[in-house]
């Protein structure tokens, strides 16, 4: 079996300028260590994949990567059905599946039993959905996903456990600002401003 850290390390190496949405305690810590801000953002429990979908719709010419987890996907399974019907080609969803709620002590998730998230994604309409179980399989699937202009949903079975990484100093709000400023700079658009200026031109006032 493979560790989450080894998978994320490979992904960080090939992610390029992809916009990455993250959720998860251990997963987040490892990812921030491997690929520091700006082009990654912290999301919210159960929201990583639908937020990635929204971002993929907003910036269809950018590659959007979601780092979700078994617990995160299970909390919002309906999102698979919406994705299966829209199939945004610039979105690549990675589900790092450790088959447990690790941060609360390791209580098993449904995927430790009979639940197969990749099969559910396929049934929801996501054509390119698969499960990887070794580092080589993960690398091959990632390379296929990045080479193909299509929605991918890659579930990766990993060992339990989080790698010790240096202490993190940025919270979700600061990372959000860094992420949005990065998008503003690379897309030449304005998203966040102190207020009035943002809508001053099209606000007619009443």
């Amino acid at each position, binding site marked *: 079996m493979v560790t989450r850290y080894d998978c994320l390390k490979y992904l960080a190496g090939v992610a390029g300028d992809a916009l990455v*949405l993250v959720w998860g305690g251990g997963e987040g810590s490892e990812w921030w260590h491997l690929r520091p801000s700006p082009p990654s953002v912290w*999301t919210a429990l159960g929201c990583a994949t639908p937020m990635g*979908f*929204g*971002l993929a719709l907003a910036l269809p010419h950018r590659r959007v990567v979601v780092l979700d987890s078994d617990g995160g996907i299970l909390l919002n399974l309906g999102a698979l059905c919406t994705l299966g019907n829209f199939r945004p080609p610039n979105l690549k969803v990675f589900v790092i599946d450790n088959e447990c709620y690790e941060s609360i002590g390791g209580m098993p998730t449904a995927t430790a039993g009979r639940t197969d998230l990749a099969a559910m994604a396929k049934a929801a309409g996501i054509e390119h959905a698969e499960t990887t179980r070794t580092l080589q399989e993960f690398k091959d699937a990632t390379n296929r996903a990045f080479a193909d202009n299509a929605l991918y949903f890659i579930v990766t079975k990993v060992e339990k456990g989080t790698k010790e990484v240096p202490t993190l100093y940025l919270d979700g709000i600061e990372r959000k600002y860094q992420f949005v400023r990065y998008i503003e700079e690379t897309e030449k658009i*304005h998203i966040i401003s102190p207020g009035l200026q943002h809508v001053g031109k099209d*606000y*007619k006032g009443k």
Partner: protein
Amino acid sequence: MKESAAKLLVKEMKTAGIRLVTCLPDGGLKQLYFLCQNDPDFEFVPVTNEGEGVAIAAGAWLGGKRSLMFMENSGLRVASEALARLNVGIDIPVLLLMSYRGSIGDGNWWAETHGVVMEPMLKALRIPYRILEKEEDIEGSLQRAIRTMGATKNHVAIIIGGGLLW
């Protein structure tokens, strides 16, 4: 709601620069749904639950696309986890539009739950809101909401009150 009010809302959405609409409407907002679903000015995303819709709208905001989620006010309860984390946690705003089911004049017994819970819940979630009761209230409402969202990075809710619903 009346067709004329729904048309005014669509006009206001366009003036406010809304480009992406996610929704899980109720009977009260079905006229809005029918108008939005095939409008080429909107990217239209029907969702499976309101938490998902809110998250999609939030993701679009990160990319600079103005978005709106519309729903029955019961959806506020379903979406509350996503709304709280986005609003209080990381300051990513979402524009909400919801029907005020259960307000005075609603003849459905099941709507009482929605009416009783909505306003205290919006307050608990720190979501400022404005209730629209007349067609004259519609123009400028979403533009003002977006101005507040830009300044505060908080969600804002526009409520379609009983005066417009029935």
